[in-house]
């Protein structure tokens, strides 16, 4: 028992070790060896981190020797850096020589946690980890100092995208912190952040993040171009950028995805998308955006895939319900009485007996008053919010029915629609349903179900013609790509999800090469 347990463990460890550092670096053919010439090392690092604005490699003199101090500025505590590292290195005028790095540390930075890196990839790794690396000319090793993460405002839970299971960190307003939140999760030297300054008055920093060896070059150029074209006085939130870079403004559907969750941004980056982080906004945009993105919550990837798939189905159907239920009610109750079973028709008719309005007006009144309530609930100070909901429930629910102004069924319809419209994991997607719902109700009131169908077909034509940065909005469904279906309507298990979505034309289409499938350990006789 023990024996086979340990084999199992060893195997697992082997796998894990392989797929992290070494393999990653081998894949990207980074020089293995740390050179005695610091300039050479600097050159290699510069190539590797090309285009990354927060990568710093500054020359210092230490012990009379030429050296470089390397770090990623968003990942370290700047105070600590200047107080404990830079000052210590420069204040010491004694040109004491040292045998090796360990000795150097003893002399200059005795109080800092350290490591000695002998390989080049260890250096890169440390830099990505938020450590400061000091390379000195003539030595075969580099010194890595851990001075800790930067100080920041407390990172709180995202307020718009709450989940039950999964990381509870959310983006904040500060750009460096947001970048750090992403970098903490993706320790890939190819993860790049380019910075733009936008806004003639505000000069806001906008960072464009992507993983260089995944993202498609053409897409990247297009996004860069569009960000450069943004011409605005002041950029106050990522919402401003969103309107400038979207392919089309005259559409109720959001063409740019926004999120407060670093894990969700990382997921998108890994698929081959790009992230746009605007200084001063906790909402990070990811592009290109697809229709299906709005039905995928990051929690889908943290819970069993069967459950996640089921929940996804629920989301799609509640989208349809939120869009169509009120109009179906109008259409059926005013045009197609024959569609209802007799008993149902009689009981609905009985309830509508004495209601003074036509069904359309009735439902419009209710929908509008619900919209008013919702808006009031959002803007109200939290303290008064309770009152609004109580008054609303009383007015909408009971009083209206008892006064005979609206029928019972209608209240059920409106309430269910409202609940269904809250299901969408991204708030601004439900805006589309909210608006379109009124259009369908109108069209249903003129033409019944024929009108609803006409509307649906029009809507699909519109959706199909939309593009986000050139990528068709309904991508894996239309144009249909059978290979990309594993994460659309259902979520396949993660170990099966080996390919990146092909509709984004990623440079490296494969995520994981290894065919690893979880299962119980093989019995001993079967080890071959």
């Amino acid at each position, binding site marked *: 028992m023990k024996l086979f347990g340990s084999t199992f463990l060893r195997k697992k460890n082997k796998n894990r070790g392989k797929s992290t550092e070494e393999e990653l670096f081998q894949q990207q053919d980074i020089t293995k060896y740390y050179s005695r010439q610091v300039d050479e090392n600097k050159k290699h690092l510069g190539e590797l981190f090309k285009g990354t604005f927060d990568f710093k490699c500054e020359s210092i003199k230490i012990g009379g020797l030429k050296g470089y101090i390397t770090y990623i500025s968003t990942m370290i505590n700047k105070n600590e850096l200047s107080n404990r590292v830079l000052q210590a290195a420069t204040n010491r005028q004694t040109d004491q020589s040292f045998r090796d790095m360990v000795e150097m540390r003893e002399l200059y930075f005795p109080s800092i946690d350290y490591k000695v890196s002998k390989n080049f990839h260890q250096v890169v790794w440390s830099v990505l980890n938020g450590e400061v690396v000091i390379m000195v000319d003539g030595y075969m090793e580099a010194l890595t100092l851990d001075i800790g993460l930067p100080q920041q405002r407390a990172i709180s839970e995202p307020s718009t995208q709450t989940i039950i299971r999964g990381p509870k960190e959310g983006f904040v307003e500060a750009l460096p912190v947001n970048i750090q939140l992403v970098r903490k999760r993706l320790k890939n030297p190819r993860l790049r952040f380019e910075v733009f300054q936008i806004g003639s008055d505000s000069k806001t920093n906008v960072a464009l993040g992507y993983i260089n060896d995944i993202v*498609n070059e*053409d*897409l990247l*150029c*297009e996004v860069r171009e569009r960000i450069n074209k943004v011409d605005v006085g002041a950029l106050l939130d990522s919402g401003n950028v969103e309107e400038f870079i979207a392919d089309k403004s005259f559409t109720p559907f959001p063409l740019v995805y926004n999120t407060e969750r670093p894990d969700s941004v990382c997921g998108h980056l890994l698929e081959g998308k790009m992230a746009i982080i605007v200084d001063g906004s906790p909402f990070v945009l990811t592009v290109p955006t697809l229709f299906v993105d709005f039905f995928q919550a990051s929690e889908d990837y943290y819970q069993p895939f069967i459950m996640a798939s089921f929940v996804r189905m629920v989301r799609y159907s509640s989208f349809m319900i939120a869009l169509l239920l009120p109009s179906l009610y109008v259409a059926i109750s005013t*045009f*197609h009485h*024959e*569609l209802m*079973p007799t008993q149902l028709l009689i009981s609905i008719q009985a309830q509508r007996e004495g209601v003074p309005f036509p069904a359309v007006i009735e439902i419009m009144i209710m929908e509008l008053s619900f919209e008013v309530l919702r808006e009031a609930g959002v803007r109200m100070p939290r303290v008064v919010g309770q009152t609004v909901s109580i008054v609303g429930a009383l007015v909408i629910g009971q009083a209206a029915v008892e006064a005979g102004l609206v029928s019972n069924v209608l209240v059920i319809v409106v309430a269910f629609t409202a609940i269904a419209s809250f299901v969408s994991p991204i708030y601004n997607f439900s805006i589309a349903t909210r608006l379109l719902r009124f259009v369908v109700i109108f069209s249903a009131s003129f*033409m*019944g*179900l*024929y009108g609803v*169908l*006409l509307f649906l*077909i*029009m809507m*699909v*034509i519109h*959706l*199909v*013609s939309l*593009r986000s940065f*050139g*990528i*068709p909005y*309904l991508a894996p*469904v*239309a*144009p*249909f790509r059978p290979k990309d279906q594993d994460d659309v309507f259902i979520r396949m298990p993660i170990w099966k999800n080996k390919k990146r979505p092909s509709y984004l*034309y990623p440079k490296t289409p494969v995520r994981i090469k290894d065919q690893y499938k979880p299962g119980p350990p093989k019995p001993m006789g079967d080890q071959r």
Partner: protein
Amino acid sequence: MKNILVEKLSLWQLFILIFIFEIGSAAVVSTGNDAKQDAWIALGVAMIFGLGIGLFFHFLLSRAPGKNLFEIFQLCLGKWMGGALIIMYILYFIYIASRVLRDFCELITSFIFEQTPVEFVAITMVVVIIYMLYLGIEVMGRTSEIFIPYFFSFIIIIGIAVFISGEMEFTNLLPILGEGIKPVVKAVFPQLLTFPFGELIAFTLIIPYTSEFKKSKKIILLAVFASGLILIYNAILQIATLGVQMRARSNFPLLSSAREISLLEFIERVDLIVVFIVMYGIIIKVGVFFYGALKGLELLSKRPYRMHVVPLGAIITFLSVKISDNFAEHIEEGLIVVPMFLHIPFQFILPLLILPILLWKTKKSKEGRE
């Protein structure tokens, strides 16, 4: 960037378009009534001929790669003769488009909206089609990709639901070929051959623009075959549900069959599903003919076809309303006049006449190249 942006009709989209196009109105209006209970056999026979028709059109196009039918006309007959022929074809396509549209208007006004004027239905439908064509043929392809699962599964589900409701009498299909092969032949020629299979002629203006022309042959054959199977399934469903006489008496037998569905005392009266199938089928069908006419205009006027979408749409709407005074006239024209005097010349005779000239011309150019 641009390489991603430029998108042609994919083969899968072509397949779907042909599939929906073929089933479109043929599934709804009663076809092959001459063959009585053997209507499904007639459809099968017609389908086999349909495969031949598809092959023929593809062969025609493959002689002059990258050119559509109208360009071939101009190639073969010169600018003026070719132009005249193209105008005739444009008129033919417009006429057929408005006929198909009228079919649907009749269905809506006799089944669902008894008091709504035909004009209204025609206008609303054309607005949708105009919008779709204005955005391009790829949008039509992609929209179909979204709707095909519903389209397909509804057709299948109707059959299953009728069956579960216990309304099917497979004995209605007997006796098979009771009166010999004659009625079947009568049903196939010329009616079933031209409608729906001969109407593939409109696709000669779309196929050259697909992403891979070489593979399109297989796709055409597959699509014709698949749609033929669905039509056979559909005919069997109608005959088994309604019986021969009732089917012949129904203006829209599929709708009448769907009316028989009654499940769980709750799912009944679902003819609206059929209306959906029809509606989308009609949109595609009118859209494809419409597109054919537009392509002709584009070639003649040398302006992008988007310029002509709205005026031509208006013409189609007007025609579809004015085309016939009453339903009987509409159907009689459709069953007798149109197949003999429009379908056969435009679908078979003219292309067949063009073929030798085309072979001669392309032979010359090929030799010249060598």
